[in-house]
């Protein structure tokens, strides 16, 4: 499998605070890669630094063998990178359908937009039911699905996901994760930061464990899940 996204030696943070110290993450075609780690380990910051929402102090981002370091966010989206933030991931004042339309913004052809929205509705029937509802009135789980739908309209080549299950009920969380699996099966590579390590690893192919902004373990998800030490590692005990 060929590499589609590679973040090399990323040093990232906010303002002057360095949260991620020299981490390298790789995403190959048609796989789900999960970044897990305790609070404050820098997994979200790492994802955000790829898109320009956190500060990239050092390192390089390569996408389809192109250097995309420092490119403007809306350009990256047009290049086929989808991104679902952890919070504020829907336009609360827009209806469900309007949210999807904004997701399809780079497409100009009306019929094309309509068709792709209809495909998203097929994928997530709940969105069709609520298409005229204001997104601000949706439940947490529905919002997350809408957020997913919003990026899927464009059919990105890769999807970056920031803690898709944060503050969701266990059922909603499982549902969102199974959707992510489906998305990957449809040919989209997924890189996600996930707090729920067991669930995250269970749906993914490979994983990275971040502790204090450093990568302490990487490997196949299965391998990591079976590792007896992971619990300790994850709770911040010594590696």
């Amino acid at each position, binding site marked *: 499998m060929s590499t589609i996204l590679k973040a090399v030696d990323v040093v990232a943070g906010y303002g002057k605070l360095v949260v991620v110290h020299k981490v390298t993450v790789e995403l190959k075609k048609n796989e789900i890669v999960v970044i897990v780690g305790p609070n404050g380990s820098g997994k979200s910051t790492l994802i955000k630094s790829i898109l320009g929402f956190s500060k990239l102090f050092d390192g390089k981002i390569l996408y389809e063998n192109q250097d995309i370091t420092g490119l403007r966010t*809306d350009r990256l989206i047009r290049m086929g990178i989808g991104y679902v933030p952890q919070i504020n991931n829907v336009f609360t004042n827009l209806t469900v359908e309007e949210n999807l339309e904004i997701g399809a*913004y780079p497409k100009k052809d009306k019929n094309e937009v309509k068709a792709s929205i209809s495909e998203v509705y097929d994928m997530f029937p709940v969105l069709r039911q609520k298409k005229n509802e204001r997104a601000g009135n949706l439940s947490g789980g529905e919002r997350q699905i809408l957020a997913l739908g919003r990026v899927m309209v464009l059919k990105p080549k890769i999807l970056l996901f920031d803690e898709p299950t944060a503050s969701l009920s266990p059922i909603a969380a499982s549902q969102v994760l199974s959707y992510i699996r489906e998305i990957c099966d449809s040919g989209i590579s997924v890189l996600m930061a996930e707090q729920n390590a067991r669930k995250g690893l269970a749906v993914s192919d490979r994983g990275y464990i971040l502790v204090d902004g450093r990568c302490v373990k990487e490997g196949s998800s299965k391998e990591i899940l079976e590792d007896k030490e992971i619990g300790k590692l994850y709770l911040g005990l010594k590696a």
Partner: protein
Amino acid sequence: MVVVNWLQVLFNSAVTGSLYLLAAVGLTLTYGLTRFPNFAHAEFMALGAYAGYTIAEQLKLGFPYSFIAAFISSAALGAASYLLVFRPLTHRGATIIHLMVASIGLDFFVRHLIKQVWGGEQLSFRMVWPYFDVGPVRITGLWVALILSAIVMVGVMHIVLTRTRLGKAIRASANNPDLAMASGVDVEKIALVVWIVGAALAGVGGLFRAADTRLVPLIGWEILLPAFAVVILGGIGSFYGALIAAYVIGLAENFGVVFLVMFKLSTDYKFAIAFLILILTLILKPSGFGRLFGEGGKVV
């Protein structure tokens, strides 16, 4: 005892409200999108009025052309303001206070440039508008044109905001700029469009005001305070909030004037009515009417 023609007062309120709406729409949209109050918005109105005057009175091309001239000249000024002043300042990390002070600087510059070009004396439109009476209400063609312009503007804006790709992108950018960027929207381009349209509408408002009363370099500055009152009462960034607020303030001002006359006070104090509403809104409910239409007044 003063005899008051209440129906006339009501109609006048619609006229004033329409004017304030044209003046405030751009102000509230740019405030919501670029997150600072642009005091130079006053000069978008003034330039439109003067450009319209030149076309209508100096070149004698008639009101429709002066309408277009007001629209275009103010649009150009709005674009220049955003591209040459406010966008670079934002990129350089200017604080909100810096942006506000810069907008005042821009206001002074443009106003005195206008003064230099057209002179400081009072000018007036000589154009004669037909008038007619409907029952006890005196109506002029200009007022009808003003109200119609406001109605058309509201209709077009409503359709644009709710039906078009651009309009939805405007609402999305005002609601959540980061997510808009993450959806592939070039938020700065959207902001530019809003600045252009907002300024153009202000220019048209300025033209109507000038044609209705007189033309002085301070014409925009005089409407700025009521325009801010509309923006704050309506909720910053809220188009529909501004729509309601403009007519509320129009009513308050026209009925207020009646009382000022009754109490033998100068009608200049109608200026203070908008101020009073503004202060009360800020103290009692800083989100204004915006809450009616969604969360936190960021609705458009």
